[in-house]
């Protein structure tokens, strides 16, 4: 089976002047279509750094990230932005919605940055919002929503461009347990529909809902229960 995302021997070294800090070293990860993967580890283990690199928000110091067969090494800032827009959907702990824009406008936003103009953006955004159960809140401003609803909007926004992979960074970190559980359930439902999801978390309960778990320590993988795939 060909992975949709391959991280090959990636390293990330931060140059702090006199000292150099290695956040990730010689790390290999393959993510396959339909995977539901959690990346866990203690604080400073390199989880976020790994997410940034496979999310093409950051470039590895060494190694390469291949997405859908395209090597992203050496891509320009513009090309990386295009790939991010088309292939990756982000969900953040702090939601990062535009507070005074409507739910619909927040979900439409990634489509506005598409290289190829997307027809009927409103209909597409509405359909995705139905999928996350927010069809009644289309015209509400995002600052009028509860935390759980905000995260649903963020998930809808991540899904709207039909990316190859959803990257979620501590998606329940700012939610109470009830809303957290609802979001977990939503991720399970989405994965059951064939959507590839990667969750970066230090929450063991959240990690447990994933089918596969990678544990990081000091920038290296210490366990991957799906490596054999």
């Amino acid at each position, binding site marked *: 089976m060909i992975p949709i995302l391959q991280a090959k021997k990636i390293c990330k070294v931060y140059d702090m002047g006199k000292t150099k800090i290695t956040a990730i070293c010689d790390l290999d990860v393959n993510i396959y279509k339909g995977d539901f993967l959690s990346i866990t580890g203690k604080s400073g283990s390199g989880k976020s750094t790994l997410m*940034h690199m496979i*999310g093409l*928000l*950051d470039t590895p110091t060494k190694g390469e990230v291949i997405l859908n067969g395209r090597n992203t090494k050496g891509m320009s*800032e*513009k090309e990386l*932005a*295009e790939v*991010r*827009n*088309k292939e990756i959907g*982000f969900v*953040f702990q702090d939601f*990062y919605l*535009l507070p*005074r*824009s409507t739910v619909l406008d927040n979900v439409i*936003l*990634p489509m*506005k*940055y*598409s290289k190829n*103009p997307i027809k009927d953006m409103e209909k597409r955004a509405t359909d995705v919002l139905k999928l996350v159960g927010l069809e009644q809140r289309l015209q509400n401003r995002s600052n009028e929503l509860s935390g759980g609803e905000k995260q649903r909007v963020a998930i809808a*926004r991540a899904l709207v*461009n039909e990316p190859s992979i959803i990257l979620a960074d501590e998606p329940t970190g700012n939610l109470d347990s009830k809303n957290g559980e609802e979001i977990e359930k939503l991720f399970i439902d989405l994965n059951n529909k064939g959507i590839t999801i990667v969750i970066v978390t230090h929450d063991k309960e959240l990690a447990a809902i994933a089918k596969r778990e990678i544990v990081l320590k000091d920038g290296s993988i210490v366990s991957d229960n799906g490596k054999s795939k």
Partner: protein
Amino acid sequence: MRIVETFKTALSSLGLNKVRSFLTMLGVIIGVFSVVTLISLVKGVQNYIEDQFKLLGANTLFVLPGKVQVGNPNTGHGILGGGFEEKDVSNIEILAKDYIDAVTPAVVATRDISYKTKTYNASLEGINFKSGAIFNFDLKYGRYFTRLEENNDSRVVVVGDTLNQELFSGQNSVGFYLKVDNKNYQVIGVLNPKSRDYDEGVFLPYTTALKEFPGSKISSIAVKVKDGINVNTAVEQINLALLKNLKQDQFSVLTQKDFLTSINSILNIITIALAAIAGISLFVGGIGIMNIELVSVTERTKEIGLRKALGATSRNIRNQFMIEAVMISVTGGFIGLFFGWIVTFLVRSLIRAQIPLWSVFLSLGFSILVGIVFGTYPAIKASQKDPIEALRYE
């Protein structure tokens, strides 16, 4: 992101902070308003002067003290301080008699004129008994003053229509006495309406003016050229006549065209100077835009990070902030232009002010330039933000 979408995004960002956006554009509003209004007012003055000269006809010449080079605003020294003698007037009258119809000295003074309880601050113009023909005076009531009255320094006056309205409620005031410097002057004529300068004026024999207003002098000489005589030939003859008593650099003989060219060149300098001063407020407005845009970039750091994570390129971000800055300055430009137009419209009853098309393009062009110049740095700063750092920004 398509440019239309970028415009919509910029517009909605500005709409989210309406008061701040308005206050930011205030500098540009004031700048464009000042530029447009000042230019329109100077244009109004220019139109007014042109109208006044056109009323006199093309064959009226003016002799001024000092050397005036047509079109050179740096010349004309002595215009304010210099003067002529009666001998100069008679030299023109005698030596250029074949070329001219009439000649009059002009002695100008400003005084409070009163009749009973009413007082009016007016310009008193001392001229000679022949000047009615030069200035094309048309009498509504009474008569013009005579040679005898001129020779006797008589305190007689011909008043303009507005002044007659103000002091005598528009009635036939011939025979009434008005007071200037506590002395009585008899009204002997009232003029028909002509133009503001004449309508608000009081005309009296120049000899009376010289005698009654201490320190006054003949500040200019007006000459009416005979019909059929080439104006330039008449200028040469008047020059020759004046050289009998004066040196070449002590006077200038100007045609209506010369006069207008000289005045226009001075007014053009004034226009540029005023527009430049007003332009400073546009510059300050630009600094205001840059300041607020920098604040906006800092406030919206997370939004920038998010947009980049969602696929915005640095160029998209730069364009968004750039367009915001230009929208502020251009909207400010249009509002300033609108207020300038209102003021121009309001003062039109007083002066024929007019907004030249070039000043519209200049002020709007300058406001666009201000938006681009002062919006560039914040826009570049926004576009260079690293998405990870931006998302982590607290």
